[in-house]
């Protein structure tokens, strides 16, 4: 990758988040360049989802600064950040239960893509996009079904499709693969790789190490709310601190 001119895609400085007296994140510095595939790993409860929540505006971080494409995100609430190009899937899928799968992906098309563009998509174009988005995760034939008819795996795919529907610049995939079979993991990885080739920068949060290692161009490790490693994947996992955190001494 050639060196980029201008500001990095995302620049986080000294980010901290507390829940009452509990320090969930502290002093997080993170720079992400356009086009990267960043793997984010860490033991349960280390603060990975909390970091995503703070970056996308679902939670409010008390300290630190976040710049996205050079723009300070302070004071911007979640939907404004989504419209700027930050998208996320939720670790526990949060589908819109009362709606068809097509309407689930229609919401971001109406409220993010159309809100962003000068020329709004027509109803026909939106219908077409919905079908396309669902077919990328093999859900096209269930477009008119409700989320309750889906398996857990399909629910994760819908979650991902809905995040992708916002046409993000930076996508956080929070454990999109938990519970999936080997072939399904391959399937999701292929989807993510294709999105990345199309120019979307991706942060993959995942416990399945083989998936993270094959996907990531860079790896960041969080332990107990602190960043303990950040670099090329093979180096990061051989870091003694990381080994200690993972193997427990």
């Amino acid at each position, binding site marked *: 990758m050639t060196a980029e001119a201008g500001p990095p895609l995302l620049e986080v400085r000294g980010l901290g988040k507390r829940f009452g007296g509990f320090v969930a994140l502290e002093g997080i510095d993170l720079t992400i360049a356009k086009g990267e595939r960043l793997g984010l790993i860490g033991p349960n409860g280390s603060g990975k989802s909390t970091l995503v929540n703070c970056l996308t505006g679902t939670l409010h971080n008390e300290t630190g600064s976040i710049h996205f494409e050079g723009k300070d995100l302070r004071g911007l609430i979640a939907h404004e950040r989504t419209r700027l190009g930050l998208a996320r899937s939720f670790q526990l899928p949060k589908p819109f239960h009362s709606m068809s799968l097509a309407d689930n992906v229609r919401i*971001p098309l109406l409220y993010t893509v159309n809100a962003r563009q000068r020329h709004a998509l027509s109803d026909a174009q939106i219908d077409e996009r919905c079908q396309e988005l669902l077919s990328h995760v093999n859900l096209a034939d269930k477009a008119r079904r409700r989320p309750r008819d889906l398996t857990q795996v399909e629910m994760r795919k819908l979650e991902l499709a809905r995040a992708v529907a916002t046409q993000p610049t930076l996508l956080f995939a929070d454990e999109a693969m938990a519970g999936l079979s080997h072939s399904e993991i391959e399937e999701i990885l292929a989807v993510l790789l294709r999105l990345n080739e199309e120019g979307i920068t991706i942060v993959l949060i995942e416990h399945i190490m083989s998936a993270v290692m094959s996907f990531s161009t860079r790896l960041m490790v969080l332990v107990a709310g602190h960043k303990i490693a950040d670099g090329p994947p093979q180096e990061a996992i051989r870091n003694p601190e990381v080994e200690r955190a993972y193997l427990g001494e």
Partner: protein
Amino acid sequence: MRVSNSLFWVLIVAVGTVFVVASRLTITNEYFYFAGYVVLEYIVLSTAWNILGGYTGYTNFGTGAFFAAGAYSAAVLHKLPATLHKTFDITMAPVPLPVMIVAGGLVSGLMGLGTGYLTLRLRGVFFAIATLAFTIVVQTLIVNWDYVGGSRGIYIIRPANAPLGGGYIQYLFSLMTLLAVVSVGIARTIERSRFGLGLNSIRDDELAAEASGVPTLRMKLISTALSGALMGMAGAPLPYYVTYLDPASSFNLAYAVNSVAMPVIGGMQSWIGPVIGSILLGTIQQLATVTISSALNLLIVGVLLILFVVIAPNGIVGLVQAWRRREA
């Protein structure tokens, strides 16, 4: 069959007009208009409630406050010419009822916006409790406001002449029919719109809605303001209907309970649910009032509400849909 929005508006305006004209031509018994007015009023209230409660997913127990605010706005406007004359020697024509309705809608709409702003960060049961508390606050203010009679209440003398021919109660009946038509039209328009789909996403999952770009706070505020405004409009004719307005009756618990129960029993997913619920429950209550006693009304509503919540949480509309699916 898909009915377009404009066709639907034409249809309900036609239904409303035929309904008013036909009843004027065939029914002379005043009781019909008194009872019909109440049922129509409930169509407005429950339809208004459903915009926030059904589409957006926020349970409002404060219908009484929005409704009474409309009624008291009208009472203030009713007294205004006399007050101006007495204190400033200014002559002012009596305010026509349609103007009072618009004013009541504005006051309650603003009230909806204000409460929304203060309480919409609360979720679920906490929001519901806040609206209940809000009713108590508004009622306390009215009870201590002497200009509109305080706790004693205030007598309102109806204008001598009713527009549109017929008696005053017929006039009130016609206006309430119009309000019912307008509310149902608005509700259905929202339901079929992008805005309505956005409200549904808030009801389903607010965090996911935000993450999908839905400006949830702004949309909830529009929803509360609109819902409150329609409730206030339904309340504005009340002084002329009862001719004696007091806090006890205008803040009656029945408004809050019915405007929740009617959409729940009819079905909250679609505009037709609150309409069915209002006609059904409203008629049952009117019949119970004349045959047994009005004391039974809330009991009937309560029992039906429990039955539906337990057995058919999607209301009558949900039952019909399930039955149709089985037939198909």
